[in-house]
């Protein structure tokens, strides 16, 4: 173990510890907690019952007070460990509490009532995962719908993005035609027109097209991404033109060249764009918030924000649904992180 630590903290060139090494490791360890801690804390909290969530100070793991059903009492009673007057301890169930005195019974001998000062009893706690936080919203609220809407928007928008952007990138990288530079500049210029600048008129256009309160109204404005066209075009430029000529000699039509030659060869760039698009569309918030006003059309992000903004926030459900919303992104992070980080370092897009 100490060898492992030694190895982990090894110094470049095996020299002694420099102050920068200490700063480095403090920074990294603190970073580990600050970056992962909040999400871990949220996930841990999502398994707590509403009662446990209201506790202060909170516990890290979800505990609930153990209950017992006793003959003659309708409701299950809370169990406590009690220090009796003679110094021995016993496990008793509480019937009621008056001031600082608690009336308790032994579950095995329900007839005998013992009076105990509340300072002398501690609840019997057991770990319990409140999985109903997860199941309830799906059964009683619309979260299945929201989940479905989010998945539909993400998958459809990503597919359209891939097809439409790759077609444009193909035209812009492999054909000579009048206005090509103009088209490129036009696409470049849109980088300067983010949604927040055009949301008012865009809303009127989407309404005029009858796409208000329609998932397609969320999908369509997002699919012609300039960044997507860019990375695909950059990649397609590296595919040799002779390959296209060879396909033309092989009687392939231009459309066949696109989908049988260019698309498969652009797969690595398409994969990067697909990952980004999934994360973008899954996380989209402002635009769906504007376009979708009917409850059954909400995406997860909109649904979550609306529910969390209500006066009486049901945190146990919100937390669980936040975890559900996080899952795809965490999966992407776990398995495709390398793709994304190299993608960003290479192109500077997000």
């Amino acid at each position: 173990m100490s060898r492992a630590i030694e190895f982990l903290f090894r110094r470049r060139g095996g020299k002694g510890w420099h102050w920068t090494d200490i700063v480095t490791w403090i920074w990294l360890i603190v970073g580990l907690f600050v970056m992962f801690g909040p999400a871990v804390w949220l996930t841990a909290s999502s398994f707590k019952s509403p009662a446990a969530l209201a506790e202060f100070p909170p516990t890290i793991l979800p505990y609930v007070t153990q209950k017992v059903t006793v003959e003659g009492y309708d409701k299950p009673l809370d169990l406590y460990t009690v220090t009796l007057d003679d110094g021995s301890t016993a496990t008793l169930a509480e019937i009621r509490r008056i001031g600082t005195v608690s009336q308790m019974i032994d579950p095995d001998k329900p007839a005998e009532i013992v009076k105990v000062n509340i300072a002398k009893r501690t609840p019997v706690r057991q770990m319990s995962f409140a999985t109903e936080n997860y199941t309830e919203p799906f059964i009683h609220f619309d979260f299945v719908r929201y989940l479905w809407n989010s998945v539909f928007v993400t998958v459809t928008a990503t597919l359209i993005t891939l097809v439409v952007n790759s077609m444009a990138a193909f035209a812009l990288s492999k054909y000579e035609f009048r206005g090509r530079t103009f088209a490129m500049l036009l696409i470049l210029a849109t980088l300067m027109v983010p949604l927040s600048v055009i949301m008012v008129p865009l809303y009127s256009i989407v309404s005029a097209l009858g796409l208000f309160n329609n998932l397609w109204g969320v999908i369509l404005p997002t699919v012609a991404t300039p960044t997507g066209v860019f990375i695909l075009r950059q990649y397609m430029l590296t595919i040799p033109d002779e390959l296209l000529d060879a396909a033309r000699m092989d009687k392939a039509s231009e459309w066949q060249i696109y989908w049988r030659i260019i698309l498969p060869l652009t797969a690595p760039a398409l994969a990067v764009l697909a990952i980004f698009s999934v994360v973008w569309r899954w996380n989209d918030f402002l635009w769906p918030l504007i376009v979708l006003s009917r409850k059954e059309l909400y995406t997860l992000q909109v649904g979550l924000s609306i529910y969390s903004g209500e006066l009486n926030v049901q945190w146990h459900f919100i937390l669980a649904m936040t975890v559900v919303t996080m899952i795809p992104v965490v999966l992407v992070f776990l398995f495709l992180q390398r793709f994304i980080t190299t993608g960003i370092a290479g192109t500077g897009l997000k």
Partner: protein
Amino acid sequence: MAEISRQTSQRRAGQNLGDMAMVPVRLAMGLIDAPLRWVQKTFGLGGMAAFFLLPNMLIFGIFVLLPFFINFAYSMTGGTALFLSDRSFVGSDQYARLFDCSNYLNPNTCAEDTFWTAVSNTGWFVILQVTLMIGFSLVTALILNRDLMARSFWRAVFFFPVLLSPVVVGLIWKWILQRQGLLNFGLYGFGFEPHVWLTDRNWAFAATVGVSIWAHMGFYTLIILAGLQAIPKDLYEAAEMDGTRAMRVFTRITLPLLMPNLLVVIVLVLIRAVQIFDEVYVLTGGGPGTSTLFVTQYIYETGFAAQLRNPGLAAAASILMGLVLVLLTLMQLGLSRSSEKKGARK
């Protein structure tokens, strides 16, 4: 992207596309082929280029360019009607209203006081955000650029929040900063009284800055790290041969060579900070009061959410914001071009 091994991934992807049961896709593609061959025959390669470009340009024109131009018209009309044809022309009234202030430094003296509150909030937010963001990501990048054990793991640690949705980010921190939250628990351990952070004007504002740094820092760290790794190693070795002290190496070698990269990052942070909305909207909703109300939220609420919607005013405000963004983007393009030139000279 350069790191993606072209050969192997091509092969894998080729198998996926080619060998997977893609019968319906193949069928569809085949069906499209016949009419497209006709297009190709009739209009030639130029026609095909137009065909390939068309869907993108169409979507693009309808959902980006058209609204962009309509926006100007919108900003010169009044009333609550949605469609431009139903709106009355008011000229520059909306702009006049936005700028109707007796003292620009005090939002309360303005006719549209929430706008100026939002502007001043955004201004402060941008200033704090840029300085702190650059500071944190630079330090993190420098640390990650050292000869570390498991560097890709540590890089991933700082990158993790970047992928989270703004709503999730907002909720995570709302949960931590609430009365029974983790932060109060931690401070309680040190003997502090629990505090309701998000109902305190100053703390709420600080929270918006801190949370958005937390959420986006990893992204900028990556870009700066890429810049650091592009600095040739032999420069450091030469400095070491000369016995240069670490601090001097940083100020005389690292910083000057990183500068073009850093400038681009600064502008990127600026562009994003000006548009801040999502996570703040979930975290504080702009409150308490208007203490965390930013310009995008002002536009959103004026245009959509307020009792008395005023799309014209919202459009005017969005054009002003767009103007700032265009300036910043041009700055970024200029910067990255000049840094490219410098790179070529090297």
